[in-house]
């Protein structure tokens, strides 16, 4: 257990000192969403209709930005070899890295989402559900992203490759995330959609670290 904590603490410290990653992700998220009113026009009704979808799509794209560095730095400087040789199960360490990744990218996205919701005129009924759905959805993005990042280790243009691998897998998250917000705005219960998101999260929690560990073992051979 102490190894898990050490790794999370180290990744947070590294992110804190190298600084800009979390800011870049949030900056991209906000800027991208702000472009939509310019593109589709300032009609409040249209913006309210598309707000939930725009915020979710931008969150997916923003999350992709940070993925290529998830294992790349550790791979290049030899840290990954030593992690693979640690007595702790590698899947467990992957989970620690995913948690650190979520804390530095997923959490800032959740915090920024209500701001975008105001900018895009999302009806107030949808705010709480949006935050809740993102709280369930963004950890899935970190977990799925880890699989893509591990598979693309050593590849040229890894960043693009990760997005191509991972974005199709995130479609269920997008569907249920947007459906939850739409349901809340339309006055329907959002519970079923949130439960499905929760189910996706629970399925990803053991499966993604396991697949990621297998890909990492292959990468350090």
């Amino acid at each position: 257990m102490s190894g898990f904590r050490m790794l999370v603490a180290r990744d947070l410290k590294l992110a804190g000192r190298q600084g800009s990653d979390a800011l870049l992700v949030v900056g991209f998220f906000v800027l991208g969403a702000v472009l939509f009113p310019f593109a589709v026009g300032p009609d409040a009704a249209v913006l309210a209709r598309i707000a939930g979808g725009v915020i979710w799509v931008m969150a997916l794209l923003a999350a992709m930005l940070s993925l290529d560095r998830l294992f790349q730095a550790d791979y290049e400087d030899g840290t990954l070899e030593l992690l693979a040789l640690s007595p702790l199960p590698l899947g467990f360490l992957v989970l620690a890295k995913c948690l650190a990744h979520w804390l530095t990218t997923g959490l800032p996205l959740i915090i920024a989402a209500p701001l975008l919701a105001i900018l895009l005129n999302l009806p107030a009924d949808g705010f709480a559900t949006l935050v809740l759905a993102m709280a369930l959805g963004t950890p899935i993005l970190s977990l799925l992203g880890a699989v893509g990042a591990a598979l693309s280790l050593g590849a040229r243009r890894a960043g693009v490759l990760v997005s191509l691998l991972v974005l199709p897998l995130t479609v269920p998250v997008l569907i249920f995330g947007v459906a939850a917000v739409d349901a809340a705005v339309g006055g329907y219960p959002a519970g079923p959609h949130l439960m499905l998101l929760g189910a996706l999260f629970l399925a990803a929690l053991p499966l993604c670290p396991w697949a990621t560990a297998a890909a990492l073992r292959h990468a350090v051979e």
Partner: protein
Amino acid sequence: MSDFSASGLACRRGERLVFRHLDFALPAGGALVLRGPNGSGKSSLLRILSGLLPPAAGTLSWGGTPIADEPELHRDRLHYVGHLDAVKPTLTVRENLRFWAGMREALDEQAVTDALARFGISALANAPARFLSAGQKRRLALARLLASGADLWLLDEPTVALDAATIVLLEGIIAEFRAEGGRLVVSTHAPIALPDAQRLDMAGYAPAQGTLPVLEALL
């Protein structure tokens, strides 16, 4: 019989068979020096011994138990120092070492301090590791050996970038480690004094030219 031993080890990289029929037995306190030209499989052998790379054939065992049966136990007793130093430039020297000491077992601050002192980098403990020279980074990577408390050290060219005085220091640290029953496998081109070390000449295990790799592994 508590040897760390290999029998009939073979290694394949891609389509190429690098070595085969490799055997050794390393008792407690023993050292094994790998010799051979570039590409003869010294690094690959060390990676197989660490468990990073599965052998194409043959078995490794510790005290008679195959390592493949208990990989976690094996990883717990070894520490591997490869070509890469795994030093994070933004962390301080001390933080770098603390992290690896804590990954293995309950963090022992005293062991971290001692390991830094032993390799002569205490003065740099609170400096970010990006200010270290190549040799100092190497010393930090080697200091992990002391902080890890491992029983088996696998060293791949440990003397690269080290000055003569540090090599002598390393020889002393290795001698102490072996006196306490530690085992060592090291590949090196530099002369490093290891009394009573077994030598393994990798050239003797290279497959004959022109043999099909698939056949060779079976022979």
